[in-house]
């Protein structure tokens, strides 16, 4: 096995971080398994054993990654735009925060607008109402016709009362 010459002296940061995360997950799984009663029964293998083996596997992969990070050196990667990524993550976070109180349509409408913003539609005054209208339509189809349980907010309740008020 010939060793490829390292491209730079510095280890690859991303691979090192992967190694650290894997090690942390391995420790969490191992500690969780230690808490479980050892009820192996006839198999001699209980609920804690498979997690332990997976934790050992993760530990081995973590070591492998750490070695690889130093051996291969820093790899060049395409630079990323952080702005759009933060918009989408923010949109998902907003939906998560608002879903229970504002209901499906408003929360999802904001996600719609934030995603459109990330891909270049910057006019939020247009995309937010458009997103809410679109999400409301989706809500009516899926909650109304397909009986999917979607959280309702003030907007959904208003629409339902309007629909129920009219003779069907």
């Amino acid at each position, binding site marked *: 096995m010939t060793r490829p010459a390292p491209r730079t002296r510095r280890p690859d940061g991303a691979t090192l971080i*992967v190694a650290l995360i894997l090690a942390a997950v391995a420790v969490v799984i191992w500690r969780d398994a230690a808490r479980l009663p050892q009820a192996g029964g006839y198999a001699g293998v209980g609920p804690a054993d498979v997690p332990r083996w*997976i934790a050992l*596997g993760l530990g081995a992969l973590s070591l492998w990654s750490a070695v690889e990070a130093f051996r291969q050196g820093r790899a060049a990667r395409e630079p990323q*735009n952080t702005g759009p990524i933060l918009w989408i993550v923010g949109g998902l976070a907003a939906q998560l925060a608002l879903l229970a109180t504002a209901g499906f349509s408003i929360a999802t409408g904001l996600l719609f607008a934030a995603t459109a913003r990330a891909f270049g539609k910057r006019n939020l005054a247009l995309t937010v109402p458009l997103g809410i209208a679109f999400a409301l339509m989706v809500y009516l189809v899926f909650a109304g016709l397909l009986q999917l349980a979607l*959280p309702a907010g003030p907007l959904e309740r208003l629409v339902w009362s309007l629909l129920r008020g009219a003779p069907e």
Partner: protein
Amino acid sequence: MNTFDFLMQGLSVALDPAMLLYALIGVTLGTAVGVLPGIGPALTVALLLPVTYGLDPAGSLIMFAGIYYGGMYGGSTTSILLNTPGESASIVTALEGNKMARAGRGGPALATAAIGSFVAGLVATILLALVAPTVVKLALVFGPRDYFALMVLAFVTVSSAFGDSARKGLISLFVGLSLALVGIDQLTGQARLSFGVPQLLDGVEVTTLAVALFAVGEALFIAGRRSAADDQVIAVKGSVWMTARDWSRSWKPWLRGTAIGFPIGAMPAGGADIATFLSYAAEKRASPHPEEFGHGAIEGVAGPEAANNASAAGTLVPLLTLGLPTTATAAIMLAGFQQFGLQPGPLLFATNPQLVWGLIASLLIANLMLLVLNLPLIGLWVRLLTIPRPWLYAGILVFATLGTIGANPSPVELSMLLIFGVMGYGMRLYGYPIAPVVVGLILGPMAEQQLRRALSISQGDLTTLVASPVAATLLALAALALIVPLILRARGKGAVLSQLASDED
């Protein structure tokens, strides 16, 4: 009853008007998501899992299979007209197909892809019907240890045999296996890795993981790219019909593609993408005009497109007969079966023959529908490609979160969606494969159960795992599939393997 009788019985199920409607919805959706870049059949089936919860099991499964087949058809349209593969199994098609479209031969390229997909789908579905009963008979003698060995083999081939790094594939697999641990242990009822959060007791939802990794991760990745790809839809000029010369150059690649694709799909050897690369290489070697390859050779479209459809049908062999998924889409379809309390495997053929044979027969009908959808109606699908990116991805995320919220509208579920979405983005950015995570999540608990069952039978004797010839052979194959690529890569021959990288669908 023999296979033919069963198939006829299945056809009578599949020809029921309600089943025809499910099949039509499936193939239409499948073609649409195949055409649209950024979403594939795996994500679509995952999204539909919560929606179909209250629907008819047979109909829902027929719809899922229709989506799988349709995705394989639709992907070629995007590859040919946009040079961006609509899904991973159409990457090769873009090589020759887009060159043909640029040379004004987009019509024949689309036609050979659609007819090739039809021929392959037809032949491979019939092969599926012929092979399945034999595999079922073999599977009846399989004990827990043999199933465990089979799953280990599937783990290795899905994660580390192909692609550019065994380490990255194995890391993805172990991430999936770790996520599979979350929840209540199936054999003892102990809560594992739930940290006192009640929502975690049910484990990680397949829908949530698939939506996060495929939809959210992909949207983040595309949004974060600085060098936006040149997306120019090439209009289809001239006739979509193939000339006599096109036909004579296409029929052999169709059959060769089918012959390559079906076994690759049927063995736990990775997904359709591998079959398309092998088919492309075979066509290049067999062609009397190798110089045309790279400049729009019709064989380079016909072969791989046939191969990816044949491989989709092949994937259903281990899925239906053994309950073993070998691609991400198949893994999510397995979750679909489980949602209805059905466990695919030899037993399902005995207890629920109408459902299994109805599903197989409906694939023949779906295939016919797809030919009609994709040849005369091709113009409709092309229009899908002109949806502006912001609206497309905003819509994708609305439907993606709808699937998760519909499955379980809790903040915990949505937080997982966000966390796994960012993880999916990181995995894409640093070249970690996605499919092993999904396969690990679904197959992990099954493998653990079989392993513990096998060890119960042997009263804890680990040598039982290699004591049956079937299990020993399968484990030896798994070891080979792990070690041989490692040696090849260490010797600098990894380029071929990374070409064969298996991606998401």
